[in-house]
């Protein structure tokens, strides 16, 4: 006579794995927790860095990537070069250029009042500023107003956000003055942080004419900012050096501030990789926990194994049962970890005011990683279980 081979349905295999896990819920939760910690760590690392990158991208979107700057470089003999005073107007004459602003570093310090020790300069730089600067660099005024043609001729100043903080100034209604050089300058405005030109944050901005008249400014810009339509940025970049300094184009440095911002986001990748490998170590430890749990389970359930063999289970069925249980255990940890990691990422991003971004590939990778970890962790216990002779398994109690 011929008999049908022993057969275990897929649904029943899953049922066996679930039942095995539910028989000892606390142990299942604890060993799944190990996996969950590893997965959560990885999801958080990837999620937070993705969210922060999304934030930078959103910022760049807002600020635009069409801002170019021209600064003086070095002369052939290694001395500091300077741009001619008329360079600002010449850059403005380049066809596609839409707006131009400039700053010129002024050799003067800023103090809260005359009474402050001159050595306590707070690291604040004074910049002579054209009135178009703010619009060109995409900055915003937090308090008061920015310099205009009328104010630029008088001792008035607009403080960067860091400067205002260092000097302890929160109002810009004309009632407060700071000491710049030998003159009191009325604070007419305070800026929000300027992401594309962070040096403005620690600056005090004064009008171009008043800087020349009162602070001994030579009128040579130290940085010229210009914006042109995105399509023309490359072409403008070509002609900028020669336009800004026709006599010595090689003594100019042209850069694109948005590149620096994007690069900052990119440099985080090294750290991300490091943290990701730490998460991987946690996952590995979690996997060892699962393997440990499964080894104990196999030892404890020898009689169950013997019984199943007597009911007609093949070695393969026993192996499959314990392997499925191990994978289920790890998978549970993976799902839990992804949920914890996702929630932590969302919480952190919302707290930082970032867009929440959890890349799908990170979740897919976590799922694949847990399944792989569960499978690897289950191989030894499962094959040990499959190797038990039914009689030995049944006589053990």
């Amino acid at each position: 006579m011929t008999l049908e081979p022993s057969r275990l349905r897929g649904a029943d295999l899953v049922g066996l794995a679930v039942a095995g896990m539910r028989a000892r819920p606390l142990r299942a939760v604890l060993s799944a927790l190990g996996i969950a910690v590893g997965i959560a760590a990885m999801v958080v690392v990837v999620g937070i860095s993705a969210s922060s990158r999304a934030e930078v991208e959103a910022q760049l979107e807002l600020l635009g990537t069409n801002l170019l700057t021209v600064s003086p470089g070095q002369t052939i003999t290694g001395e500091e070069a300077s741009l001619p005073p008329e360079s600002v107007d010449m850059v403005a004459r380049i066809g596609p250029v839409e707006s131009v602003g400039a700053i010129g570093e002024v050799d003067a310090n800023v103090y809260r009042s005359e009474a402050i020790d001159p050595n306590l300069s707070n690291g604040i730089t004074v910049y002579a500023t054209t009135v178009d600067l703010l619009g060109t660099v995409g900055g915003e005024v937090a308090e008061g107003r920015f310099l205009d043609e009328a104010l630029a001729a008088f001792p008035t100043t607009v403080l960067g956000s860091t400067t205002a903080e260092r000097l302890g100034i929160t109002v810009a209604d004309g009632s407060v003055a700071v000491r710049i050089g030998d003159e009191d300058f009325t604070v007419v405005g305070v800026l929000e942080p300027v992401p594309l030109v962070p040096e403005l944050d620690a600056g005090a901005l004064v009008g171009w004419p008043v800087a020349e008249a009162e602070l001994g400014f030579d009128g040579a810009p130290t940085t010229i900012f210009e914006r042109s339509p995105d399509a023309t940025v490359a072409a403008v970049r070509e002609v900028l050096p020669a336009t800004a300094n026709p006599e010595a184009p090689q003594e100019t440095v042209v850069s694109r501030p948005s590149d620096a911002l994007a690069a900052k986001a990119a440099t985080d990748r090294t750290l991300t990789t490091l943290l990701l490998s730490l998460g991987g170590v946690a996952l590995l430890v979690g996997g060892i926990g699962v393997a440990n749990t499964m080894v104990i389970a196999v030892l404890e359930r020898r009689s169950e194994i013997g019984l199943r063999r007597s009911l007609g289970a093949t070695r393969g069925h026993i192996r499959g049962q314990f392997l499925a249980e191990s994978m289920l255990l790890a998978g549970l940890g993976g799902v839990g970890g992804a949920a914890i990691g996702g929630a932590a990422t969302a919480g952190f991003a919302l707290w930082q005011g970032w867009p929440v971004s959890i890349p799908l590939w990170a979740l897919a990778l976590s799922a694949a990683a847990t399944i792989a970890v569960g499978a690897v962790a289950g191989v030894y216990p499962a094959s040990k279980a499959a190797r038990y002779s039914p009689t030995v398994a049944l006589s053990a109690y």
Partner: protein
Amino acid sequence: MDDQINTAVQVRTGDERAGPGAARPSDPSDASPSPEPELPQDDPVSVVELAGVDRTYPGKPPVAALRGVDLAVRPGELLAVVGPSGSGKSTLLNIAGTLDRADAGTVRIDGRDLSDCSDRQLASIRAHRIGFVFQQFFLAPGASALDNVADGLLYTGRPKRERREAASRTLERVGLGDRAHHKPGELSGGQRQRVAIARALVGDPGLLLTDEPTGALDSATGEAIVELLVDLHRGGTAVIVITHDAQVAAAMPRRVLMRDGRIESDEAVRG
């Protein structure tokens, strides 16, 4: 009225095969007793046949658990295997149940030589043709009686609904129809053993192997279990009962006495 002498049993088995024990487990119609005999009536093949079987457990010194054992069990037969501890009873059961392999000699189940069977083929024989009942019941504590019994069909690949229907019928058959949804912890020892017997029977095996089925029970409960086994045998299932309980053995129409790995006597007795 019947089964009083060995030969009578063998002759009768041809008719008795009409019982559920004879139906092919893979046959979907096995729900109802099928009158169709599986084997020629004039030459009933033994459900299990051991010829010159040796089994020695390795160790220092090696233990010869079985030495040249010959035993044939006809379909529907009921026999007790008795003997002192260490006489080889359990080894005999393991080998007859394909859980262990003989070192020498041949073992046949339904006429099929097991020596060239793979692990998968042996598993298939256990899944479809043999039911085991153990002294310790081995029930899953978290599952209902019904699900424990249905587990007896798990490795036949039949769908869950079908398994539970068969389990429900088998629980009725062992007198536990009203306890189907109780967990083992809510059942008495005798009821648990009935659940374990139902699990062994649910696939309608031709051979039921029981190892000290009354060992963990008080004598009154044990007697009821023995009555159940006798009923099953009347229903056409061959039953081998391993026991050291003389009272249990006395209820069986055939008794095999083992000592030191050998069969000392094999006789049909009056019940």
